[in-house]
């Protein structure tokens, strides 16, 4: 398997690696994939409650180089976007940007799922009165 330069760059210099406090009311956490499938992505966003703008994003990924690159790129893209704008990111945008081959498309699907799961988690927290009770899955 040969990788595109962009995949290699994200693999060698992954952006926004780390974790945010998943207990915080402003933080949404998405955990998608499964170890048995060889891919698990954790993507977290920190949203400004006034503006709905994603001010910070972090990820950690267990997976191949393309999975790491897809999630690294996803964090770069969601930062600075509003929640609704972030929801408009499609996996094919990631495929295109990273020149992923067909067998790696599922990596981009997982990254889109991770964005959605993180936003879903954040939205759920906004609906509940006691954010501290909400636990990331």
């Amino acid at each position: 398997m040969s990788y595109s330069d962009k995949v290699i760059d994200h693999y060698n210099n992954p952006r926004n690696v780390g974790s945010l406090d998943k207990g915080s009311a402003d933080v949404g956490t998405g955990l998608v994939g499964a170890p048995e499938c060889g891919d698990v992505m954790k993507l977290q966003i920190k949203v400004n409650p006034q503006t709905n703008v994603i001010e910070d994003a972090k990820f950690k990924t267990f997976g191949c180089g393309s999975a790491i690159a897809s999630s690294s790129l996803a964090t770069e893209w969601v930062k600075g976007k509003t929640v609704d704008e972030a929801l408009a990111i499609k996996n094919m945008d990631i495929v295109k940007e990273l020149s992923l081959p067909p067998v790696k498309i599922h990596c981009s699907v997982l990254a889109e799922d991770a964005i959605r799961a993180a936003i879903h988690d954040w939205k759920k927290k906004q609906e509940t009165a006691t954010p501290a009770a909400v636990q990331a899955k």
Partner: protein
Amino acid sequence: MSTEVKTATLAQHTAPNGIKLPIYMDNHATTPMDPRVLEEMLPYFMEKFGNAASRNHSFGWAAEEAVETARERIAKLVGATSKEIIFTSGATESDNLAIKGVAEMYREKGNHIITAVTEHKAVLDTCKRLEKYGYRVTYLPVQKDGLIDLDDLKRAIDDKTILVTIMAANNEIGVLQPIAEIGRLCHEKGVIFHSDATQAVGKVPTDVNKQNIDLMSISAHKMYGPKGVGALYVRRKNPRVQIAAIIDGGGHERGMRSGTLNVPGIVGLGKACAIASEEMPQESCKLAGLRNRLRDRIMGRLDEVYINGSMEHRLPGNLNISFAYVEGESLLMGINDVAVSSGSACTSATLEPSYVLKALGTGDDLAHSSIRFGIGRFNTEAEVDYVADRVIETVQRLRELSPLYEMAKEGVDLKSVKWAAE
């Protein structure tokens, strides 16, 4: 017209400590040729180009003599007689010839074949094809260490069993099956025993009589010989084994394998066997030493590293380990100046992790995290240390990136997590 051939370039560079990169440590996939092998092959391309089947001139005689010398050298390495060695294009063909050849020849006697789930695809897919033609195949499971249970084999043999085919050494985990005991069991029951010994011949002592082997597949390119040539050992007495040909034609190789002999390749295989006969004792000690050095260095610095398969019954140059919480392909990407392979799904065309590791009961998660190191004749201590250090630093880096490692360190039981299915 231009006759230039485009080839992928192998960019070579040198590490600060003088080690030439990339380092090849994938010797179960193929081995580099030993220069002594190449040297012996060269005259048979141009100067001594004759057809070994040409009986009426000196060009043919020279070729035939070279082929017969090779046959003797191969026979000597495995304790056979030269008349029992049939040349083929490689071990895949040898496996096909042995299994299909016995199936056809002994159809009257029975239709049952026994093999194991960890066999190479050349054996498994051949058996699967025979199932389509009405043969019955038993796929023996393996134990956690990769070895078959002899009691399972005993129970599986019935009055319709014509063939047992079990590999000598596994290509992924290097595990050595109890070949002599399997052979004895087969002979007690009057069943023919074939062994795919592609990874074993030239690496560990192999003796077709002591190990009760009736048919045995051999490959040149796994033992520092050329690609495209192999052999099948076919027992001639106690018992005499007969096989039907799968390639018909001029009746070469006693009618078992027609086709003009690949004389330079055969000469190369012969030389590779001659070198192995001489050097195997020292070489296997050296390889086991390097392998253990690699294992100890890695395991001394990393936690949650698991060896796949028996350490005791194993090829000297093989190490197959799973690095928990790190996916194999991403690990390969991080050690890109080292050539090894992974059991991860991402490195296969099928998107399924290694069926060999799954058969051991290794969870899919750890199968995705596995790396196979194949240390060979030309690897050095300095290379082993370099590889170990690259692996260690890459695993550490990728674990910092791994949500699974983070969860495990937080005390989360990953088995109890309800993972969202894709």
